[in-house]
Every structure is written in structure tokens, then in C-alpha cells.
């Protein structure tokens, strides 16, 4: 059991998401930085399917009523009992995470995983679709479970190197844009706007102008898609984005760089390279 003393700006329960229901309008959801989630679970010896707490911009404060093994990964925050390493804390321990110096999302895994009931096979909070547990609030008592795969790791894990640019695959609708839009996408520095969320990262830069101005019939999208609404400012769809959209997608972030996209924080600057 974990007691939430303060959730910070947004703390949700996330696992690897809710695949298999996209045809019913259910988004993938799950950790925005999968690799960091997996790393945290590995450190505490959890099953890869175990749920953890995704912390947004730090601010999470917890108390542990009983001895608990935890691991923190992702955007590194001060105030933690350790980072990228499993630590066993005695009953009554408390800690509070500071705002990370860089990155957006941190993961707190506990040995045994978070044991809220699964909805459609996942414990993830889908903030847009309204599935799974609500975001954590002060005073919540979060149950831990028995999703254990092995021993607690004695290693210090290595986080992947920071990526200065995200690789993209052009399409499916790059041909709906003027040729200059594609060069503007890959040749400009984009700034992450504050209105970003788990549904999408809003970017600001040069307007991506369309060649085809007719309305696009709704079509399926994926997390990582760069969807361009009428404003010409792209939205990088996140794990909680709807499964279909009516705006053309100029390019999609390569799966290897999705975790880095999940760490984009308001004010950050980002570039895109063709894969």
C-alpha cells in the first residue's frame, strides 16, 4: 500500500496500455515513456505487465505504511530515495519529488505492482477516454499487488541517452500538404506549448500549409502521429489520443523515439528528422 500525500500536477496509474480495443474506439493509453516504465518494473523484479505510477513534472509525495521496495525512473527528480535503482524503505518512510530538471514524466514502481482493478485488460488511466482509475489525489491509498517475476535487481540501470531530434516517417497524408510544409517540418525548431497533455503535445513553429483543403473523412491514427488541424500547428498525438481523427497526419514519429516524445515538456524545443 502507498499513501498519496500529494499527487503533484498529475499522477496516474499506467501500465503497458490497453491494446486490442481500438476498433471499439478505445485508445492504447499506457505509460508515455514505456522504456522507463519497463526499467522501473525490472528493477523491482516485477512482471513487465505490472502497473506503476506515472508522475508529471514531479510533485508527488508519498508515505509507505509498510516496508516497500520501490524504483524511480524517467525524468530525474530531486527528493527521491534513489534513481534508476531499487531501494527498500522501512515502514513510515516518506519522500516528495521535486520538479525534474529536464524531461516531463517519472515512474514509481513498487515491488508487486499497483493492484487497482484492470479495465479491459489494463490498469492504465485513459485521461481522455475516461477509462481506468481516476488521477491520484491526496489521501488516496493505492494498493500494491503480487505481479512479481523475479528478484529485486541489485543493479543501477542505465537510462537511454537524450535524443536531440525525433525521427519521423512521412505520411499517411504528407501529400495533403504543400511541399514547403514537409521541409518546414524537418527544417524547423518546434516549441512545446503549455496546453500539452497525455492526449497530445501541441507544437508551435511555422504554419504547415495544406495543398488539399477538403475535409478528411475520419481515419485511424496512432500515438506519435503529427496531426495538423486547420491552424497549421501540428499536434503530436500521445497515448490517450482518440483512435480516429479528421485532420491529416503529415508524419508519424518512429516507434524507437516515442518514449522521447513522451518526455517533451512545455517550453522544450524539438526537431524532426526523416527516418
Amino acid at each position, binding site marked *: 500500500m502507498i499513501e498519496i500525500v500529494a499527487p503533484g500536477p498529475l499522477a496516474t496509474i499506467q501500465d503497458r496500455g490497453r491494446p486490442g480495443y481500438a476498433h471499439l474506439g478505445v485508445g492504447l493509453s499506457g505509460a508515455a515513456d514505456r522504456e522507463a516504465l519497463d526499467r522501473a518494473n525490472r528493477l523491482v523484479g516485477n512482471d513487465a505487465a505490472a502497473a506503476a505510477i506515472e508522475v508529471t513534472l514531479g510533485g508527488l509525495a508519498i508515505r509507505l505504511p509498510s516496508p516497500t521496495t520501490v524504483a524511480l525512473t524517467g525524468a530525474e527528480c530531486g527528493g527521491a530515495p534513489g534513481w534508476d535503482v531499487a531501494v527498500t524503505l522501512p515502514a513510515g518512510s516518506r519522500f516528495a519529488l521535486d520538479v525534474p530538471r529536464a524531461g516531463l514524466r517519472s515512474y514509481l514502481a513498487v515491488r508487486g505492482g499497483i493492484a487497482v482493478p484492470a479495465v479491459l485488460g489494463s490498469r492504465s488511466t485513459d485521461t481522455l477516454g475516461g477509462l481506468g482509475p481516476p488521477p491520484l489525489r491526496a489521501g488516496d491509498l493505492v494498493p500494491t499487488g503480487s505481479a512479481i517475476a523475479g528478484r529485486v535487481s541489485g543493479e543501477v540501470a542505465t537510462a537511454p541517452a537524450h535524443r536531440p531530434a525525433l525521427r519521423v516517417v512521412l505520411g499517411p497524408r504528407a501529400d495533403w500538404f504543400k511541399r514547403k510544409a514537409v521541409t518546414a517540418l524537418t527544417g524547423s525548431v518546434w516549441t512545446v506549448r503549455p496546453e500539452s497533455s497525455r492526449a497530445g503535445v501541441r507544437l508551435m513553429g511555422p504554419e504547415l500549409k495544406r495543398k488539399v483543403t477538403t475535409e478528411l473523412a475520419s481515419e485511424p*491514427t496512432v500515438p506519435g502521429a503529427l496531426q495538423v488541424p486547420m491552424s497549421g500547428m501540428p499536434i503530436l498525438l500521445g497515448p490517450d489520443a482518440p483512435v480516429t481523427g479528421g485532420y491529416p497526419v503529415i508524419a508519424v514519429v518512429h516507434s524507437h523515439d516515442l518514449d522521447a516524445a513522451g518526455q517533451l515538456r512545455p517550453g522544450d524545443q524539438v526537431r524532426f528528422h526523416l527516418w
Partner: protein
Amino acid sequence: MNELLARAGPDEPMHRVRLLPCGDLATLVELPPDAGVLEFRADVAALGLAGVGELVPAARTLLVHHSAARGPVVRAALVTLPLRKPDPIATTAPVQVSVHYDGADLSGVADEIGCSVEAVIAQHQDPTYLVAFCGFAPGFAYLLGLPSALHLPRLATPRTLVPAGSVAIAGEYSAVYPRESPGGWRLLGRTAATLWDADLDPPAVLTPGRAVRFVAA
């Protein structure tokens, strides 16, 4: 894939599907207007291709999730798969949805198309609808079959809150809002039927391919 396209030759029927990349782990298949998306989805599923994941239909497209390694093989199979016309008659018995026709936009719709409220209700109840695809929100089903007289654009300003169970129309579609949410569709009425329950599997009553009829409550 180029080789397959070349082999079809100029005398073959016009090339049928467009394959559009959607990242490294999915391909968007754009179908010609006379081909059935759900029929194509069923045929892709029946191929049982290794490395293929979810098949997500929408209005004119099918998104095929696949592993990066199997992408070329999957695309080659998609491009040669024969197309079928949409099945005019659904094979399942229609789901009956009873509606209280008291929606906030009912009289506005009647005014806009120049008929009585009763005529709008009669036209809305007339067809057997087909769930074409889901999107926008969990369990939000796009129903095809709306009479063309009722094809109207979305509201210029979407409502910030549409109650759960609202029966609505927009463009060529009708839908039932599965949960309370913002929305820009025109509201004709509401149903008390539970069409979405995340604790059930499948959670949605209105799944792609299901036939639906609206009846006055």
C-alpha cells in the same frame, strides 16, 4: 511491392487500394469508394498473416498494425487482396435502440431542412443502420444509413457537455453518445439503453458490422 504493381499491367482493373505509411508499425489502407471497409477487414483477418496486429476500420480506410519486420510481406499481401462491395444486408439481427425524441436540436433540424419535427423523427427511424466504425470516444459508433435529407454539418460551436445516451446526427452518420462528453453533433433525442460497459467484454453493444434500428420509446 513495386514489382507487384508492375505485374498488374495497364489492362488489369484500376489499381484498387492505396497503401499509406503510418509510422514503422502500421499501414493505412485507403479503399476505393465502392469497396467495403468491413469486408476488407474480414478478408485481411482471414489471411491470418504472421506479425499482423489490430485492424482498425474507419470511413474509407483500414489501419493494419504490424511488426516492423513483417511490414513488406504484409503490404504485399494487402495490395493483392481482392476487394468486395459492401454487404447491403447485415447478417445479424438489428439491435433495437428505443429513443425519446426530445433532443435540443430536433426543431432546429426540422427548420433547417424545411419539414416538421414528426417528419424528422420518421426519417431518422426509417432505415436499418450499420455500425461502420468506432472512434472519437470509447464505444462511440458511427452509424451509416442516415437518409440524405438529414445530412447536415456539425454545429458550428460544439457543446461542452452532451449527456450520455444522446442520439445525434452529423454528416452522413447517426450515433449515440456512450458517455457524457463534449460534442458537436445535432441532438435528436436520447436513449436509456446501456450501449457501453467497460466491465463487459466486449464492452460495446454497437460493434463494427452490427445492424441498428431506432424505435420511438
